[in-house]
């Protein structure tokens, strides 16, 4: 057990290291992409370029640059932005975390609850009109670009139907802190939650249905039938319980990725200053320190989510537990 934890930690570190190196190389060592010329702007003279290189430490060997940056992120925590040189990056990133977590958590609750209901109902009524329409709806959910859905949501709730009783409660775009007022916090996030959740409801609902139908073909379900259990009990206590194992794996990966910045498009459309929006803004300015920090943060969340999934796995699947 102890060994497994050490191994897991080692694996986490390896993946995080790999990702940070990869991102560093993408931005600092891609042929033709010179960070100094980006900072200096187009058509900067050779002297200015040289000065910029020196000032930002870009004249040093690439591995020194890498380690300096890592030291500034993890040890001294005083990495500053390239664009706005007084701006400390680490606190800026930490500030965005509550926004992203609020967005992703709420959406996750929605999509887990609804996809479970949809997947189970569809599997229970397999091949009926209800099953078919649920699956088509799920497929439509999967086929929608999330940013476009967000815009349509905005069009409906902020403009076209904003003055009707249906959407008059929708506050203007932007994030409100939870501490400043839970109600305002909740109201601003409702529409973003729904928008982000729709894709995953479709995806998870379909996956769960397929898993349930597969599980219902298993021998142990036949045993359960032979025991005289009701179909509902068989579906929920036997088939759904065993299907949850793969459901949780999928959930862990998606949740980690979303907290790690994949919710970017939703954040951009709804003007929520979360980690994804911060990354995106930094990308547009090519503010490399911020990009590096957010990406390492992202990989940390993805790897953490994987570790949590492993733990959940042990809880859900006794076969993984060692006797």
């Amino acid at each position, binding site marked *: 057990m102890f060994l497994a934890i050490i191994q897991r930690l080692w694996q986490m570190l390896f993946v995080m290291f*790999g990702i940070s190196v990869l991102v560093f190389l993408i931005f600092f060592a891609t042929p033709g992409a010179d960070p100094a010329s980006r900072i200096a702007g187009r058509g900067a003279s050779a002297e200015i370029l040289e000065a910029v290189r020196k000032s930002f430490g870009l004249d040093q060997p690439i591995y020194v640059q890498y380690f300096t940056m890592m030291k500034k992120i993890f040890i001294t925590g005083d990495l500053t932005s390239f664009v706005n040189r007084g701006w400390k990056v680490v606190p800026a990133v930490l500030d965005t975390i509550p926004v992203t977590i609020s967005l992703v958590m709420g959406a996750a609750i929605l999509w887990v609850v609804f996809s479970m209901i949809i997947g189970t109902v569809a599997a229970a009524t397999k091949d009926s009109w209800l099953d078919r329409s649920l699956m088509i709806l799920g497929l439509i959910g999967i*086929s929608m670009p999330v940013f476009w859905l967000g815009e349509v949501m905005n069009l409906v709730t902020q403009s076209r139907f904003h003055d009707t009783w249906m959407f008059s409660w929708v506050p203007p775009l932007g994030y409100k802190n939870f501490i400043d007022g839970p109600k305002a916090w909740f109201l601003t996030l409702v529409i973003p939650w729904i928008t982000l959740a729709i894709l995953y409801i479709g995806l998870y609902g379909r996956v769960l249905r397929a898993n349930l139908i597969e599980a219902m073909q298993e021998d142990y379900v036949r045993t359960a039938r032979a025991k005289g259990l009701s179909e509902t009990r068989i579906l929920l206590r036997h088939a759904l319980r065993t299907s949850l194992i793969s459901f949780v794996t999928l959930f862990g990966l998606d949740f980690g990725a979303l907290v790690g910045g994949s919710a970017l498009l939703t954040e951009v459309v709804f003007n929520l200053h979360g980690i994804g929006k911060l990354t995106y803004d930094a990308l547009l300015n090519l503010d490399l320190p911020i990009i590096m920090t957010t990406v390492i943060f992202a990989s940390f969340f993805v790897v953490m989510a994987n570790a949590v999934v492993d733990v959940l796995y042990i809880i859900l699947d006794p076969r993984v537990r060692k006797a």
Partner: protein
Amino acid sequence: MTALVETRSDISRGPWATAFRRLRHDKVAMAALIFFCLILVSCLSAPLYAKWAGVNPFTSTLDATIMLDGKQTAVMEQSTEGLGLGYNPIGPTWQLGNYFLGADNQGRDVMARLLYGGWTSIIIASGATILTLLFATVLGLAAGFFGGVTDMILSRILDILWAFPVYLLAISLSIVMIAHGIDIGPFTIESGSLWLPVFIIGVIYIPYVARPIRGQVLSLRESEFVLAAISLGVPSHRILFRDILPNVTTTLIVFVPLMMALNMLTESALSFLSIGVQPPDASWGTIIQDGQGLLYSRPWVALAPGIAIVITVLALNVLGDGLRDALDPRSKIKLGRG
């Protein structure tokens, strides 16, 4: 019971013929295929449409006028709101060939741009799919078949890419490459070229396909017919190409429409963030971005390309489901995360 009989008659027909027959009987999948072909043909006819409508969808035409209900109407109307300084593009006329969906903020015919943009989107999605499948197959085969150090190194690299949120990777690559293009030895892509998004989207999804392929190759390698071939002394390249590749092909074919759907969504997202397709080229994603500023006044500029994406991706997903059912009835193949 039914399965037993089915396999018997299937053997006489051959797996491909059976799959094809099953697909042809799948009405929903066939409808999706026909629908996708219709979209393809309409997008292909974009130049014809533009010529017939007499518009150039790539240059701004702020002073153009059209005949509407027998009246000469300006495409860009003087704004009546606020100080009256701005211009409002004309809304949808719902007359084919006559600014059917209205104009965008540069007075360009949205309908014509939609057709051109669709072609770009489809080209990028297909190109990236080919790239992904090609590399993923090579990597998956190499890792799964040769095992050992090759497998370890490749799997570690795929692990890292896997843990990297795919949109962040795509955005990072796009940002760096959008200004300078790619210049690695003999391999160059100009900045602003359509090949750039093809390359980026193609690369980021490699692990999503390579992983399942590797898994499949691994299990095939342990299967009895391959072990038998090895013990008979069949050379490994022959096993690879005669025994393993044909089995992997089924997986690859199922992946084609699903990857195209995924790529189309990714392309639109990148273009929406203005780091995908670059002007003057248009794609459905860039048109949505053009429409973002006009969202509350002229929503159709953003709505129309979004609807186009949804129905195209939907058709591809339905087709993918049908293909999976036809080629792989027990559905062992699962896309990436699944």
